[in-house]
């Protein structure tokens, strides 16, 4: 089943120099392991291919049911050097939530995940 990340997580992002950080938080605690399993470093790297110029770092915060990603080279130089509308990386959060996950039907049913609209 296709599940949209925006339906199972919320997020906030910010900047540090030319790096955007995106914190992804499970909407329900029992959805955190699924998000933790799907949002690998490689998956996030692939998601932001063509959007960022640097690498991705990943940190887990199981205490907050959250993952933190550092997206390097995300902000066109960052801070005042950047020409971007989103020079401070404020909406990389919602860019992350555009991700769609492939979840086995059984697992999706057990967890009560909302299916992506057709």
């Amino acid at each position, binding site marked *: 089943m296709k599940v949209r990340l925006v339906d199972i997580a919320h997020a906030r992002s910010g900047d540090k120099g030319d790096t955007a950080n995106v914190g992804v938080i499970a909407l329900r605690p029992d959805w955190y392991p699924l998000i933790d399993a799907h949002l690998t470093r490689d998956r996030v790297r692939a998601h932001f291919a*063509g959007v960022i110029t640097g690498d991705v770092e990943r940190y887990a915060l199981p205490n907050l049911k959250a993952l933190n990603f550092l997206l390097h080279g995300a902000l066109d130089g960052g801070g005042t050097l950047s020409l971007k509308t989103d020079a401070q990386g404020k909406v990389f959060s919602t860019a992350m939530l555009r991700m769609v996950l492939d979840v086995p039907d059984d697992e999706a049913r057990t967890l009560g995940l909302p299916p992506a609209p057709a």
Partner: protein
Amino acid sequence: MSKTPDPSRIVRVASGQGFWGDWLDAPRRQVEGGPVDYLMLDYLAEVTMSILQKQKERDPAMGYARDFIGAMESVLPAVVDRGVKVIANAGGVNPVSCARAVLEVARRAGATGKLKIGVVTGDDLLPRIDELIGAGHSLTHMDTGAPLSTVRDRVLSANAYIGSTPIVEALAKGANVVVTGRSTDTALTMAPLRHEFGWGASDWDKLAAGIIAGHIIECGAQCSGGNCLHDWRNIPDLANIGYPIVEARADGTFVIVKHPGTGGRISVPSVTEQCVYEMGDPNSYITPDVVADFTTIHLADDGPNRVRVHGIKGRPATDKLKVSIAYRAGFKAVGTLVYSWPDAMDKARLADRVLRERLDRMGLRFDQSLTEYVGVSSTHGPLSVASGEAPEVQLRVGVRADDRQMVERFTREIAPLVLNGPPSVTGFAGGRPKVEEIVAYWPALVDKSVVQTSVEVLS
């Protein structure tokens, strides 16, 4: 400073300003809406110091966050009559002048002698840069590794981020207002807790708790329902949003609350969003006072608009301080035009091609240029999914160069497109784009031992 810890005693630190430019009404609302012991006001962003430095060069009495003077006016009765104490990094590059301006506010209000202002100095490294470089402190850029000598002649300001110790010292000397320069945002919250509860300089877990309390409230309403994605439609009464307050105890646990009758929402999701804001490695949140571990934070629902925070662990601080350096980094300008249906996006793309061809033909070579299509892909780039035809598109083109003339020339090329480019174009009422000098941020580290802070109490 050493007080008998009473486990039931609560100290309330209220956040009244998350950045310079935040809601002017918030400080007054925080001291009038219910009980608070301290009002914490954060005014400094990364390049604020350089703006203040420029102001000080023009007028030696300036160089601090002017909004703070209005804020002090609005909270003066609470400070004078009810003993609320104020801690702010509004001093910028001129904390002494800032303190004098606040004393003047008190004098005008007939409260002469009622304020004792602790002024923290020593963070300003600008006069010492050559001495530091000469002594082997290369002030290398933390991200790029370049030594500061590469931009030395363009440096505008240099300030060490200082921790809670001088603020605690000011409070111990009886200050009821503390004005600092480049303190860390989090120290403004942690210092009063350290002072009230007598936490030692190596009570790592408690210091870390104070730092995380500071992190949660340092952006004002961003933890109490502002900019909150979780359930945003149902967050009540944003027009009347309540700014956050830390209710802290001596053991390092605390509850995030807001005043009764205010709007917004404090919930585990709203506080979690703020916890991850601007986060690096959550295992090591490095401050001058302690290294806090965000993976040890536990949040629990503690009733309506109350979130309890506990379990926080910290580790010894490093022997370095971060230094915020600002330097001149060329010029930039951004021009915009709006194209309407039909085929808005195609028209905007054609206009961009025409513009670039002209700039190219003039031989203008920018260090950086960027085209965005606002309404289509400016925020999510290639991740954006077009759903149907855009009714309108804003073309937004930015350029950056060391040469001001080159950027000026660019700004003359936007308006002509209205008459000599693709059709259905509007939105040029603002006139020619403004050329802006770029002041860029250079983060570095320096040995703690070279920075000496001092505290003076004025009244």
